[in-house]
Structure formats: C-alpha cells, structure tokens
C-alpha cells in the first residue's frame, strides 16, 4: 500500500494506516537483513543526501546503511552549528545540493521546523532524522516496531516514557505515534522535565518510578543529558539515578515482566544500571537492528511514490 504522505516530518498527524504500512514494510526488510546477501536493488539510481547539521553517529550510520541496502547512492553532508555561522544561508546550501539533482534528503538539525522549511524550498522527499526538540519519527517508528514484534501488538498496551520529556524529540514522536496506534501513554520524570501542558496531549504524568514500573507493559527510557545546561533541571546525577534510574532490584521488587527500550547511547549507572542494560528485559540492540529496517521501509515507501 502506498503512503498518503510525501515526506516524513514527524508522527503528529500521520494516520494509523500509514504507520501500519511502514511497520509492515519494515517487517519484510527485517527478513532481508538476516540473509547472507543483504542488498536489494529497490532504490537503484536514486540519490539520497544525508544532511546532518547536528552531530550524530548512530542515526546517520543507520540511515546510510539503509540506503546502501536499498542500492541508493548515498551522499553525506555534515556541518556543525547553524547555517548562520557558516556564512552561507541554509536556503542557499539546500539550493546548491538540489541543483546536483537529488531525490531525497534526510535531515538532522538543531532547529525545530527545519524539515518543514525544506519541503517549501525543495522538490525532494524530506525525511526528518531529528529536528531540535521537536520530532524524531524514525526513532519512534523503530521503537513501535520493536514493541510490536516483542508483544504482538500496540493497541491497548501501557507504555511509559521516562526521563527528560520536555527536551526530547524521541518522546514527542513516540507520544504521537503510540497514541495513534491505540496505546495508553504516560510519562515519568522529574517535574522540571515534564512540559507544563503535557496533559493536553492526552498522556498521564507519573513522578514515581516504581509506580511507572508497576502500571506499565513497556518502559521507554530516554538518555539523560549530563552537560551543565541540562543539569539546571535536576539537582544531581546521583539524585536522578536514585529516584528515576532503573535497577534490577527495582524490577525484581515490582515483580513483573516489563519490556525496556532505550534509544541509546546509554549512561550506565544513571538512567539504567549496567545489570538492566545487559539484562533480559531490555531490547536495546534489537532496536538498533530494527532501526535499519524501519529506515529502509521509510526510504522505500517515500522513494517509490510518484
């Protein structure tokens, strides 16, 4: 089935059918990734630019690998900071790249709204690989795919996102996507990291991590930023780890089987103890593998639209 969207800018407003199509398509690509020869000719002749205005290792590699698996020509363009500091305007950069005849642009940028702006000045299909604290749709899609594979469904599941919700594009995309798919979503974290108007998004807020473990089928644990700016929001890493960190003891105490996701990279001993990070509840590396399949699905579905 073809998608009703031309670009993947976020999961806000994306229909259940489209999400379903992406997840189902990813499943067929997931199977290809297990073959000895992992390459298909699907996007042969298509040129895809990975435009990374913000440093990223795993997302960029995941996209690049997905592009190569689909036989597309992938070009990496990485710049740090904003277009302003570079001298050339962002618009000029885009016009230049497009003049070289590209088909799709995967964009990561520190400023929210940049992918939407790209759709206005470019004719390519645009895929958001993370814009500021706005959205990171492929991460949410791979999270959803991983949960669906492990638990067989999304509809009716209780899923809690834990950590810095206010500054997380992963949280926002997960909330939109999961709610569309019929999951019951809650968030858990220090109150300074929960947006004031979060209730308007139809999610519950939990401040007690034990309660979050007891009441949910899945925990999606976000990475805590350890740099000084982020530290304004909580008093110490020690206090965060003590009150919001997931330890094996906590999981055992609450005595239930719970699925634990983390988008990586992990701060061991902060949001996850090493025991949990390597334990039987987590599916962290499984998510990484699924990430390639999800990105293949998105590239394939958008790249073969007319």
């Amino acid at each position: 089935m073809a998608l009703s969207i031309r670009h993947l800018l976020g999961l806000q407003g994306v229909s259940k059918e489209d999400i379903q199509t992406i997840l189902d398509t990813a499943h067929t690509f997931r199977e290809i990734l297990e073959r000895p020869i992992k390459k298909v000719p699907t996007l042969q002749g298509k040129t895809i630019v990975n435009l990374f205005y913000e440093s990223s290792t795993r997302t960029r590699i995941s996209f690049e690998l997905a592009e190569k698996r689909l036989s597309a020509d992938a070009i990496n363009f990485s710049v740090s900071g904003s277009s302003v500091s570079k001298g050339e305007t962002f618009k000029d950069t885009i016009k230049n790249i497009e003049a070289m005849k590209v088909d799709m642009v995967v964009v990561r940028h520190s400023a929210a709204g940049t992918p939407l702006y790209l759709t206005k000045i470019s004719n390519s299909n645009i895929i958001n690989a993370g814009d500021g604290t706005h959205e990171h749709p492929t991460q949410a899609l791979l999270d959803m795919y991983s949960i669906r594979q492990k638990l067989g469904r999304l509809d009716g599941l209780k899923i809690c996102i834990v950590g810095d919700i206010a500054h997380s594009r992963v949280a926002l995309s997960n909330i939109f996507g999961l709610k569309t798919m019929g999951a019951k979503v809650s968030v858990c974290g220090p109150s300074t990291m929960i947006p004031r108007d979060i209730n308007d998004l139809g999610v519950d807020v939990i401040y007690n991590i034990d309660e979050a473990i007891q009441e949910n089928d899945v925990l999606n644990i976000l990475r805590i930023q350890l740099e000084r700016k982020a530290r304004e929001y909580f008093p110490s890493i020690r206090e965060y780890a003590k009150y919001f960190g997931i330890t094996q003891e906590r999981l055992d105490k609450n005595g239930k089987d719970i699925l634990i996701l983390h988008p990586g990279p992990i701060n061991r001993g902060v949001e996850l103890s090493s025991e949990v990070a390597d334990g039987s509840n987590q599916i962290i590396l499984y998510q990484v593998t699924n990430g390639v399949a999800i990105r293949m699905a998105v590239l394939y579905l958008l790249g073969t639209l007319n």
Partner: protein
Amino acid sequence: MKVVLQNVDIIHPEEKINLKGVSVLLNDGLISEIGELTKNEIEGVKEFDFSGKILVPGLFDMHVHLREPGREDEETVTTGCNSAAAGGFTGVACMPNTEPAIDTAEIVKFIKEQASNHLVDVYPVAAASLGRKGEIISPMAELVDAGAVAFSDDGVAIKNSSVLRRAFEYANMFNSPIIEHCEDESIADGAMNEGINSTLLGLPGLPSVAEDIIVSRDILMAEYTGGRIHIAHISTKNSVNLVREAKKKGIKVTAEVTPHHFTLTDDAVKTYDTNMKMNPPLRTQEDIDAIVKGLKDGTIDCIASDHAPHSLEEKESEFQFAPNGIVGFETTVGLALSELLHKNKLSIEELIKKLSINPRKILNLPIPKFEVGALANFTIIDPNLVWTVDISKFKSKSKNSPFNKKLLTGKALAVVNKKKIFFDDKWIDLSGA
C-alpha cells in the same frame, strides 16, 4: 499654496469636535477655515474630495525602530518616515537600540536632523542607561535638551533594580517616562510563547510570567519613586491586570499594545514562519481577550506598531535563529480598524485617542489643534476601504510582515503636517500663500 478638503467628517476626541461633511481650507499649510465655504472662497483653489472619509488629529506611533544609525540596510530615518506617512502617521517616537545606541545628545540631534525636512515628526527615545547596558544611567538632562522625549533600554528591561530606581528618580526631574521592555531575561530564553504550541513545535518557550515579573517590579518601583512607567508592547493577561490595579492605586503607569498582539495567537507559529517571531511573542486567545478588555476600559492607553525592520537574509533562517520583530507602520491602522472598530470592540473616538492623543500626552507633546491659524497636522482615514496588504508596495526598506495578502478594512489615505501633504503616493508642498 491653498488647498481645500471637501465633504470630510472631522473627529477630534480631545477637543470634542465631531462634524459631518464639512470643508477645510488650508493656506500655507495652516488651517484657514473649517465649515461651509462659499464658491468665492474656493475659486481656483486645488480641491480634494474626501466624501465619507474622516479627518482626525495626525496619528502618532510611539514605539518604532528606524535603525539609523547602524543598520541603514534595513531602514533609515527617511525610509522609516516614508513608511510612517504611508501608514497614516504624522509623528513617531523612535527607540534607542541603534548602533551605537541613542545615548548622547549628538545622536539625538543627528536623528532629528535627518527628519527635519520630512512631513513626519521624529522624537527620539533615548537610552535609559549608557549603551543600554543597564549599568549607569544616561545623561538624561542633556538628552532632554537635545530633544529626547522618554528613556528606554528597549530590546531588554533594565536588569538591575538599583539602576531602574535611579533612572526613575532622575527622569522624574523632566517628567519623562521610562519605557520598559518587560522581560525577565533569566527565564526568557525562548523563541515563542511557552504553552502547548511550543511543546508541539519543539521550540523553546518564552513564558508569560517573564513579562509579568518585570511589570510587577516596575510598577512597584514607579510607586516607590513616584516615577512614570510606560509598559511597552504589553502582551499577557496578567500584565494587563497588574496595570489596571496599579492605575486604580494612582501609580503613574501607562501601557501600549501592538496590533499583532491583539490580532494573532501563537497558533500562527505552526508554520515556523519567521515573520511570526517577535518579542514579546504571540500569546493566546485568553491574552487577546484581556488586551481588548484593557483597551476598552482604558487600562491600555495606546496602540503602537513596534515597527521593527529586518533584512530578508536575516529573517530567512531557522525559526530559532531568526531575529525578533516585524514591520508595522503600514498595517497598524488597517489592523486596528479591522480588529477593533469593525468587530465593535472600540469606537472610532476611542481608537483615535489610542492612535493619536494618548501617545502624545504620555510623551508630553502638544496635541494638534483644529482651529483657524493652527498648523495643519492631521490624518485622513477611509474606515471602510477594503484592501489587501501587499508587502511589495511598502515604503519601508524591509518587508518582514506576517500580514502579506491579508484582507483589511480601513486605511489611512492622506497625512498633512509641516506644510506638506502626502496623498495618492504623491508629496505636495503646501507652503507659501
């Protein structure tokens, strides 16, 4: 030269004048007669027919950025005045956040000199502190002597409360108001109003409480020192309520609002259009309702454009990195009439007070008189003209308006001041017998 304006309705709320379909004879740019004129009196005199139009005291915009000196690529005193005249204004007060800041008598005089031959009167607002740094108060006595009409560090609030206190106390010797851009910078590190929309858009939020905190502090300091505080571009419900309560207590506080703050909500940011980015940011419908109520009951004294020209290159960037501000001269009257008069929120008299009389009173400037022998200083408005905003026709050097292609009802058609008339895109010299 002599000209006659025919069949015009005259409204001057301050002088309680309300006349229908009269004629106004001008001679050497002065009002020579108002009323019924005989054929003999207008024999051979250039006539303008303004049937159905209203003639009001020249409009005054007390919060504008003319960008000179320093950013002449965005606006100059001359292009800014052309834009003001096209928007219906015969006087403006320009803010001191130029490069360098307006903090010496020389810069005040320079700006006045640039405007000396223009129809539009330009009154500089000088910096409240040297270099707008908020450390040492500016040489206010010299600045007043040179022609400054108020003091402000606009763009930022005076951070240090001790400096604020001295500014109030010192400016009070000249009965000059301190105009404050009310924003507590320590919690205002954002790109748009903080709320559900900033969460959905992933943009850092600028909370309304950042404005309310400084409005509270400034009102308390004005009360303590007996100084005059003028709240620039008020944008929140709580701030409107604070000003209302302060006025009841007799504290010397006045306030202005921009047209965009009573026209648009932060829903408009959803497109990430950088012309929707200004400071204070667009707020919510609840705030607009409070602002309209404040305009109606007199809490908010005037409407000012906060005309803030920015180059296309600067605005054509990521929302977070784009500069704040929009041009406003040429849309202010249209928005005020469309949003307030035609939606039955304010009467035409109330609007004229807020667009002409009150700003002059706040700045201790004379109100144009409608009497024989007075210098003609007025604006002619067609309150019912339906027109479409077209930024390519703006006289301003900059085109950063969120209202391009918007349909408005009501427009200023002509301005007269300093023995000149601007009408139908033409400047006519009225001097001489």
